[in-house]
């Protein structure tokens, strides 16, 4: 998959609040499907469907361990997403830092024109 395609899969997987909640819990450590399903008002098959989407997006992996197949979070795609997002934030911050400087100049200009008006009134 190309980077945009991979990001599409990642974002699609992240677009669902249940899947985001699953990831947030997995960020703290490995869990089985039963353990993951417990806090949700959802059946295990429904949770399994969400896990499949997350697995296809490469956000989690599952290993075979006797009867259970514990899930774990995979850091790489998430890092790719947050890396992109951090760059967008930096872009806006770059724009706004320039705006700070422009506003400083405008304030000086505004103060200057007020001063001139005051002087004109005095005359």
């Amino acid at each position, binding site marked *: 998959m190309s980077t*945009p395609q991979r*990001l*599409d899969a990642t*974002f*699609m997987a*992240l*677009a669902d609040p249940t899947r*985001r909640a699953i*990831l*947030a819990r997995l*960020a703290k450590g490995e869990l089985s499907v039963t353990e993951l399903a417990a806090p949700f008002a959802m059946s295990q098959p429904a949770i399994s469907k969400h896990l499949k989407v997350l697995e296809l997006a490469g956000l989690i992996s599952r290993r075979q361990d006797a009867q259970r197949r514990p899930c774990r*979070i995979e850091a790489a795609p*998430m890092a790719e*997403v*947050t890396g*992109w*997002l951090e*760059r*967008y*934030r930096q*872009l*806006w*911050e*770059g*724009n*706004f830092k*320039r*705006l*700070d*400087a*422009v*506003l*400083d100049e*405008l*304030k000086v200009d*505004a103060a200057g024109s007020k001063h001139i008006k005051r002087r004109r009134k005095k005359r």
Partner: protein
Amino acid sequence: MKLGATEHQLEVTTSDRQIVMTRTFDAPRELVFDAFTKPEIVKRWLLGPDGWSLAVCDIDLKIGGAFRYVWRSDADGHEFVVSGVYTEITRPERVAHTEKFDDPEYPGESLETWVFDERDGVTTFTSTILYDSMEACNKAVELGAVQGAESCYDALAALLAQ
């Protein structure tokens, strides 16, 4: 966030199809409002990434009036176009406009609202972008790699980083 200090941290929050961005500026809101709505001022700061410039900045600031921004890459002349129509203008407090990326891959339109709130000479600027679908929100984030849109998932990233 430090208010009234020289540090003005950019805050981004998100929920569902919405991106909210907040930043303070050390200036009265009339000035900040002008800086966002007068093309000759906008052109001085809304430049995008290094190596890009805002080649076209047309703003017809009235209800039903259109705006159009064209960013151009110095290196290869590649262009990125955003346009929309103003739906609400209350100087110097509030502006709302539709927004569309001129990109065949981008599936929809969003509604952006700017609020300028002044306290003790410091203006808090809040931009709320509401996308018509989650898909559009995601796409906007991807396209933002070129132009500088904001994050749908900063909040998630922060949560996962805990």
